[in-house]
């Protein structure tokens, strides 16, 4: 067990290194010096408290959208719609925040906004599970397309009832300060949403690996036939996991509107859903692994902005870096299983009497 954990650490570290090396090669093609770019990236990320804390600000919603992919994935379902669920959550959180801001005491207002967002996102998501259970619809496609519907609904409200008082841009007014998520480190943007996301990740881990419900979700994911003969209703599992997924992505929406933007802006954070998928795959859908992978991606995102500002390298290089890291980490899973098999075979040969 210990050897395998070491394997995991070494292989993931090596994969991240190789991913960065591959992106360095690409920078060379762009005629930029990768070493100075990486130096800049590293130094700027740890140079000041604000930038460093921003890594975790960026990680918070990523943790939640990655979990939104991971939970249905445990039941062998693909939730490609976290982006839309995120928008639904952001929309409802904003509407509630605008309505209760200043009327309810702070924490209570935040809680109401979070719960309303999660419930709405959950319902939105469970529709996908329902379509799968009832009509054998393809959850991959339905969830993916539901994102566009959610986006359109958000735009509709941003141009009508939720539009700012000035009626200039498709965005809401700023929320009352009472419903802002409190900062957990002063002089930074780091808010309670990060702690919330980590707690939720731990809770999801417990649910998946330690409760009868999570057990049944995994049974359905591994072997739907055996699940059926054991009296486990996979249809209910489809709806339930998609409800949870929708609620998680919606919570990410709440975290972003109430923790960072303090308002709702049209089409913000458009990549959160797909990055979440990448992170979940990177972490092998393990909720705890997702926390660490999200922090890594948070750092890359934060660094990308700085690199773009300072070194003349287009900020989109960071997406290439993310992609390279992801490819190598996924390759490392296969490498690890090959190493493991070889080791067992050698062991066997050694023990075999001549």
């Amino acid at each position, binding site marked *: 067990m210990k050897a395998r954990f070491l394997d995991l650490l070494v292989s993931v570290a090596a994969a991240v290194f190789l991913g960065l090396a591959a992106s360095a090669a690409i920078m060379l093609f762009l005629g930029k010096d990768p070493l100075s770019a990486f130096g800049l990236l590293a130094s700027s990320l740890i140079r000041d408290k604000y930038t460093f804390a921003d890594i975790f600000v960026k990680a918070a919603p990523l943790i939640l959208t990655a979990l939104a992919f991971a939970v249905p994935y445990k039941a062998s379902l693909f939730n490609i719609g976290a982006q839309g669920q995120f928008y639904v959550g952001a929309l409802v959180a904003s509407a509630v925040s605008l309505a209760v801001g200043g009327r309810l005491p702070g924490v209570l207002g935040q809680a109401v906004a979070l719960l309303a967002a999660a419930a709405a996102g959950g319902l939105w998501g469970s529709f996908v599970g329902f379509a799968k259970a009832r009509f054998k619809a393809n959850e991959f496609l339905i969830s993916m397309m539901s994102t566009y519907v959610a986006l359109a609904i958000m735009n509709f409200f941003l141009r009508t009832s939720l539009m700012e008082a000035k009626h200039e841009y498709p965005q809401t007014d700023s929320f009352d300060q009472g419903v802002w998520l409190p900062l957990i480190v002063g002089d930074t943007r780091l808010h309670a949403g990060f702690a919330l996301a980590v707690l939720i990740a731990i809770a999801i881990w417990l649910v998946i690996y*330690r409760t009868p419900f999570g057990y*049944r979700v995994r*049974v359905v994911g591994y072997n739907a036939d055996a699940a059926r003969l054991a*009296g486990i209703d996979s249809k209910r599992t489809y709806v339930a996991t998609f409800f949870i997924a929708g609620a998680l992505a919606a919570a990410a929406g709440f975290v972003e509107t109430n923790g960072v933007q303090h308002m709702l802006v049209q089409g913000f954070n458009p990549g959160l859903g797909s990055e979440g998928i990448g992170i979940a795959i990177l972490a092998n859908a393990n909720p705890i692994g997702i926390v660490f992978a999200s922090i890594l991606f948070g750092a890359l995102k934060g660094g990308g902005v700085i690199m773009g500002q300072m070194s003349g390298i287009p900020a989109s290089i960071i997406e290439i870096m993310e992609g390279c890291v992801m490819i190598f980490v996924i390759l490392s899973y296969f490498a690890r299983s090959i190493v*493991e098999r070889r080791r067992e075979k050698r062991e066997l040969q050694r023990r075999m009497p001549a």
Partner: protein
Amino acid sequence: MAAPFIEMRDITKLFAKVVANRRVNLSIGRGEVVALLGENGAGKSTIMKVLYGLYHADSGTILVEGERARIESPKDAMSLGIAMIQQHFSLVGPHTVVENIVLGNVRGIIDARACEGKVRDLAGRYGFDIDPRAIVRELPVGSQQKVEILKALYQDARLIIMDEPTAVLTPQESESLMGFVRAYAEAGNSVVFITHKLKEVMEVADRIVVMRSGEIHGERKREETDERELSSLMIGHELPPLPPSSPAAEGAPVALRLELVNARDRRGVVCLRDLSLSIREGEILGVAGVSGNGQDELCEVVCGSRQASSGSVRLGERDLAGVGIRERIELGIGYVPADRQRDGVVMEMSLAENMILKSSFGKVWRRGPFLDLRRIAASARKAIEDYSIKAPGPEALAKGLSGGNQQKLVVAREVEGSRRLIIFNQPTRGLDLGAIDYVHTTILGEKRKGKAVLLVSTELSEIFALSDKIAVMYKGAIMGIFPKAELSMERIGLLMAGYSGVGA
């Protein structure tokens, strides 16, 4: 002295976790029928897959007619005249017999008539009654096997390896297969017969090679041995005879009753026809039949995973119409499915997790909102001990267990979880003799405990050894239910083939 046709020297094949073959030396002469006898997991199939080029040996050499041969793929093997018929046929169902036979051996424009002529010719030579234009999936299993044989013959195979060829055949079909094997060998060709059935071995083989845990554990000429010696070579010791079956209580209450049950499969084809049967408490009803004649559907109708289109299923007094799988489990029905890897076990989960598969809804395994992992592990440890499951511990993944131990796991779970009725569908398929013996003893034990047992099996010896009453199924209907004493092997064979009008 001329070199034998095939000689395998010092073949060692390793898989990640097991030594599949260790220094195996094996020769196959011309005109010889070699039986490769051994339990499941003894390495019989592996060594033959090495010869056929599906696996690559880690060390050792293969000589064909005294010359070193490199066999990298089945294509190489076929060009040397070696063919192998896998346990699961590799046929294209919607294609015709001829199309299947020429598959992979034709280029450019196919001269269909010439191919058909050649196939007809080959079939005629060995007396196979097969229409070359028939669609393969519409043929009975016995004929599909003949198509596989024709495929080998079409490529001028001089050695045919058959992996458990009789597993899916009726007694009559097996008989005709044996006839082919003899005729083929008499023409100077060779056959390797992989099997764990002693009876077949004594019937057809010239020489018997016994394998055990990857090594050769003895070679005998047929004339020089008997079934007793072979079985002890195979498992290393002799098995105690099964305890005599206690007589079923005559007046015991009926536990399961099916009346005029009909059911259709997904395509709407009738798969159960007016099926009626009843099983008393403490009674074993054996259901014999060639596989695919409605036995699986019968089990499904009882366990609740298939709805009857008409008729009634009763457990004791309770009508099971509209009662779901989960409720039926709670009512005390256990089910050991035929395809354990698909329906019975979650391969990626641990043994302990597999043990709670059917009882995760109850409060038994819970502490607060969470699973009581310690108690689950303890109960799995007890099952490992009680059912002598060979596993490193409760945390071992099911996929790491051998087939026999996976089955013991399923049997343990279903026995523990059922109170009134337990269904065994092909409970010993693919198991080694030790595990078979264990499962049989368990089934008899369940009967003694007063549970009703529905035993579906294509192994007639199993049906005869365990059942109190025997039902024979053919095309979804029951051909008759008989007390065991009133049935002979021959009679049952005819019933299995659909002939009901023989004698009384």
